[in-house]
Every structure is written in structure tokens, then in C-alpha cells.
């Protein structure tokens, strides 16, 4: 690539697409790098194809999903250099981005960078979660959106959060056989969340939607057990069922597929690799980059918008992307600060509305403490290197004070996922064992390449 783009955006979900459209409309040259083959991110995954076909799938996925079609059309029409299937494996503080696209590695330096890499499902480390037949509830939804595929046989959904309810409802609507919903949300969580209700009522449609989803799942005859504890997936070669404690007794339910979900957490891999400042967020217990009012990180020229900046959902993400793009246009002197603030004003209003439900969701659907610090020492925590909760506790007894030391003792976080699926759990266990806060225990140092890159690709480096 010969010319330096004004703005490089990593990710083509709602935040990345909206930012690209907004920035291009102010005359910025924009390069968008996205790992998927189609724009939309995970929330609007495969939106263009699904919007083009009249189908039952559209009804199943619902109006909130179909809302992504308008943004996808804007994105397609705008003057944007969009590379699908581009995997970013290193980012430097001067906005140089190294990535592989069509088997060729290259590097491009932007004048500014916006990271919009979204969220991932929180790791749900319970016994048996590595067995074939177990996947994230979000993963099952990806299969539905991208391929019109649903699990066959008996499905048990386990965990908490709005997405768990939505996926369950969609599977039921698609005719899949959901035999039980095991909610980890307890009565105490409802009571603790009561104080957030007045704020949530400023945007009551979210509450109405949540209650409607629950009614549909119940009406379909799916038994819902709330406040379950002592969860374990049963089976040796593949998942055969779920064991759970409910109302003082242990029970078992047979299943062919087990879908786990305990909310989503920001994808901080790039901001961590960059050594941006991060902060710990309660009560959802995740890290996010420290940002100013225009989503700028602690590194000049680099901003983060969307769920990778903290979990606020798709509509908020698109607004945040536009706000970040306005600031990028201002800092590159395409618009004045006064223009930026004038154009941002209605966006800030929308943002406040999309934010209104979050304190309720964050408080009500706080992660089940059992998955944060798995009690059973045999539970795999690091899926890649197969490091158990017991091995992590042993590492702490041997003197490891934080995740990085533990990584060198036990190899957790050293596999291909680079801690994406164990980092939070490892830190929680260390904190619990040492009687410290996770905030003080910290997180893995993430080093490039953050995605696998072959020596062959590097040898053919095209700069």
C-alpha cells in the first residue's frame, strides 16, 4: 500500500463500520481491516446475505439483528478501503499495523488508528467445558446467523445474561430441542439489581424485550431452573449432560449439546499488546482500556470504540464509532473542534439512552462466582495448554504472584489463544488464593504476534 491512510480501523462490527462511514463523510481516507469474510462483526454477522433473502431465518434472528442491514448498506456505499479476511497480528504505537491478508503479510501505517475489535464470550471454566459438544451460546448464535445451522438433539443452555436468553429463544423458534435452561442468576442478584431499576426505566423497551423473550422460552415448554450451582458437564469423550445443584439437591439432565454463557467481555488483545492503560470494571469483572471522552487511549493517535472499550451493546457501539471518527477528523484538521462538538451533541444524547439499561444488566447478570474461581482442582482453566485450576493454585503456592509469573511456571496463556480464554480466570484464582484484588494481580503481558503468522508469510513480507 503506497499511501498512508488517515485512519486505520481494525474491526468491521457496528463501531468499526459506523466510524468508517462517518470518517469517510468528512474526507478522511479510511482503511478497514476485518478478520471475517463479511462486515457486521458478531452481532450483525452475515447481515448482508441474510437481509437479501426472504426467509424464516430472518424472523428467527429478529428485528434487532435486521437493524444492522442499514449500517451495512451505508458501509458498502461509502468510499472505504475495506479488506475482509485480514488478520492483524501486531500494532505499534505509531499506528503501524501488521496483518496477513490472502496469505501475504504486510504493514501499513495510518495517521490515526481506531481499534474496534468487539467482545468475546467470557470463559466459563466448569468441569467438562472442553468436551466436544460444549460451546458458547454466542457460538451457537454465530452458526445460526452465518450458516442457518442449529444443534440437533437435546440442548441444555447454562449461565446468565441477555444473550443466553436471546439465543435460547432463537433456538426454540428455529425448532431446536432445548430441554432445559439452567440460570446461574439468583434471587439475591435480582434484589441487588433492584436499585438500578429506576435508571433502566428511562429506556423501558429493553426491559419489555427481556420479559417477552423469557415468556416465549417458557411458553415453548422449556423448564427454567434459576440460581443453579455446582455445574459440571458430564461425559468422557463427548458431552452427555449437565450436573447442577438446585434447591439443595444435585440433579442431572441429559444433553447432546451444552451451550455455556456468562456474558461477554472486551477483546483487549491489541490494547494490551500496545501497553495502553487499562482499568478494572465492577461488577462485571473485566478489563477495559482507559479512555477520554472521545475514546482516545493513553497512546496518542490511538482510540478504541465499541465493545472492546467496555460492554454497552451494538447500538451504543455504532454511536461511539461515530463520535471517535468525529474526533479523528478534528485532530486531522478536517473539521474544527466546534464542528466536532456540534455534530457529537445528538450522538451523546443517543448514547445516554443506549446506556440506560446497562447498570441493571451489569448488576443482575454479574458473572457466577463459581466460574471465576473454579473450586474443582481438575477443572481445565487454560484450554490450549490444558492447565487446571489445581495447577494454578499450585503455582501460587510455589510463589507466583501474578499471571505472568504463573505463565512461566505452568504454561497457562502460552498456547495459540494467548490467554483470551484463561487470562481472566487465572487472575481471579491468583487473587483469591493470595487474598488480593484482581485489580492488583493484573493481567498477562500480551506480545506480538497476537495471531499465528508463518515464517513463510513473514519472509514474503510486502511493505
Amino acid at each position, binding site marked *: 500500500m503506497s499511501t498512508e491512510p488517515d485512519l486505520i480501523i481494525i474491526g468491521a462490527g457496528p463501531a468499526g463500520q459506523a466510524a468508517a462511514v462517518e470518517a469517510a463523510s468528512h474526507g478522511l481516507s479510511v482503511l478497514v481491516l476485518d*478478520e*471475517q*469474510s*463479511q462486515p457486521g462483526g*458478531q452481532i450483525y454477522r*452475515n447481515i448482508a*446475505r441474510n437481509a437479501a*433473502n426472504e*426467509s*424464516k*431465518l430472518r424472523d*428467527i434472528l429478529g428485528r434487532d439483528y435486521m437493524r444492522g442491514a442499514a449500517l451495512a448498506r451505508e458501509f458498502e456505499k461509502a468510499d472505504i478501503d475495506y479488506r475482509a*479476511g485480514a*488478520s492483524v497480528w501486531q500494532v505499534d504505537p505509531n499506528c503501524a499495523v501488521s496483518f496477513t491478508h490472502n*496469505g501475504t503479510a504486510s504493514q501499513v501505517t495510518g495517521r490515526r488508528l481506531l481499534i474496534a475489535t468487539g467482545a*468475546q*464470550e467470557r470463559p466459563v471454566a466448569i468441569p467438562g467445558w*472442553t468436551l*466436544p*459438544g*460444549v*460451546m*458458547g451460546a*454466542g*457460538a*451457537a448464535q*454465530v*452458526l445460526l446467523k*452465518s*450458516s*442457518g*445451522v*442449529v*444443534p*440437533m*438433539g437435546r440442548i441444555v443452555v447454562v449461565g446468565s445474561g441477555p444473550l443466553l436468553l436471546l439465543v435460547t429463544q432463537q433456538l426454540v423458534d*428455529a*425448532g431446536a430441542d432445548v430441554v432445559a435452561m439452567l440460570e446461574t442468576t439468583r434471587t439475591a442478584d435480582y434484589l441487588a439489581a433492584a436499585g438500578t431499576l429506576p435508571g433502566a426505566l428511562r429506556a423501558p423497551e429493553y426491559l419489555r424485550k427481556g420479559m417477552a423473550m423469557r415468556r416465549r422460552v417458557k411458553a415453548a415448554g422449556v423448564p427454567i431452573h434459576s440460581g443453579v450451582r455446582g455445574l459440571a458437564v458430564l461425559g468422557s*469423550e463427548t458431552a452427555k449432560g449437565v450436573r447442577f445443584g438446585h434447591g439443595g439437591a444435585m440433579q442431572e439432565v441429559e444433553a*447432546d*449439546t451444552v451451550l455455556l454463557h456468562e456474558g461477554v467481555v472486551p*477483546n483487549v488483545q491489541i490494547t494490551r499488546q500496545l501497553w495502553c492503560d487499562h482499568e478494572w470494571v465492577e461488577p462485571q469483572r473485566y478489563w477495559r482500556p482507559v479512555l477520554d471522552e472521545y475514546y482516545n487511549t493513553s497512546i496518542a493517535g490511538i482510540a478504541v470504540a465499541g465493545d472492546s472499550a467496555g460492554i454497552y451493546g451494538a447500538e451504543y457501539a455504532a454511536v461511539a464509532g461515530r463520535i471517535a471518527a468525529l474526533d479523528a477528523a478534528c485532530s486531522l484538521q478536517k473539521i474544527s473542534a466546534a464542528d466536532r462538538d456540534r455534530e457529537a451533541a445528538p450522538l451523546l444524547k443517543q448514547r445516554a439512552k443506549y446506556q440506560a439499561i446497562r447498570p441493571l444488566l451489569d448488576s443482575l447478570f454479574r458473572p457466577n462466582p463459581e466460574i471465576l474461581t473454579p473450586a474443582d482442582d481438575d477443572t481445565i482453566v487454560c*484450554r*490450549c*495448554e*490444558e492447565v487446571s485450576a489445581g495447577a494454578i493454585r499450585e503455582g501460587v503456592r510455589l510463589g507466583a504472584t501474578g499471571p505472568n509469573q504463573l505463565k512461566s511456571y505452568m504454561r497457562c496463556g502460552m*498456547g*495459540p*489463544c494467548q490467554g*483470551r*480464554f484463561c487470562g481472566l480466570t487465572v487472575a481471579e484464582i491468583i487473587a483469591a488464593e493470595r487474598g488480593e484484588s484482581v485489580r492488583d494481580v493484573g493481567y498477562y503481558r500480551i506480545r506480538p504476534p497476537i495471531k*499465528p503468522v*508463518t515464517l513463510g508469510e513473514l519472509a514474503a513480507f510486502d511493505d
Partner: protein
Amino acid sequence: MYKRLPEGDDLSVTFDFEGESVSARPGDTVAAAILVSDAGHTRTTPVTGAPRLPYCMMGVCFDCLMEIDGVPNQQACLVEVRDGMRVKRQVGARGVDE
């Protein structure tokens, strides 16, 4: 075990998985096509050789690592199926090229 909704029945793409022919819908990822074909696991782990299937379907868990057209350690959930593609399980860690 997975099944397609009725509208997902345009199975016009054919690829090879471990010597078996697998049909898929255009736009399927390799990971989705393997799941729905019920062809067994996508990889085995380097430490204990345990079988794994995709967990996240969005490029973060790496349990869908496969060898695609001779290139090991590909995230099968990020690669769309193409006619004539050759797909193998990733068995343990990738080797070093001779």
C-alpha cells in the same frame, strides 16, 4: 450434531476432509461445515491429545485449528469453504517444515 434449517440447503460446495467428501453451503466457514457434517473433532490438543471441536466460532478460542490446503494451524472458523479445498485435522502442535 447439528442440522441446517430448510433454507440452508444449497449444498453446492464440495471439499475434502481427511479423504471424505463433505458438502457445504456457499458462505459456510470450514468450522461450520465440519460441525454440521458430523465428521468428528477438528483438532487434538498438543498436551494430552484430547479431541476438540470449535468452542467460540469467532476467532478467539483456537479449538478449530485445522490444516487447510497444506497450511497447518488455520482457524477454521475464519475461513470460508471453497470447492476442492483439502482439510485435515490439526493433530497436536504443528511440525517444523522440512
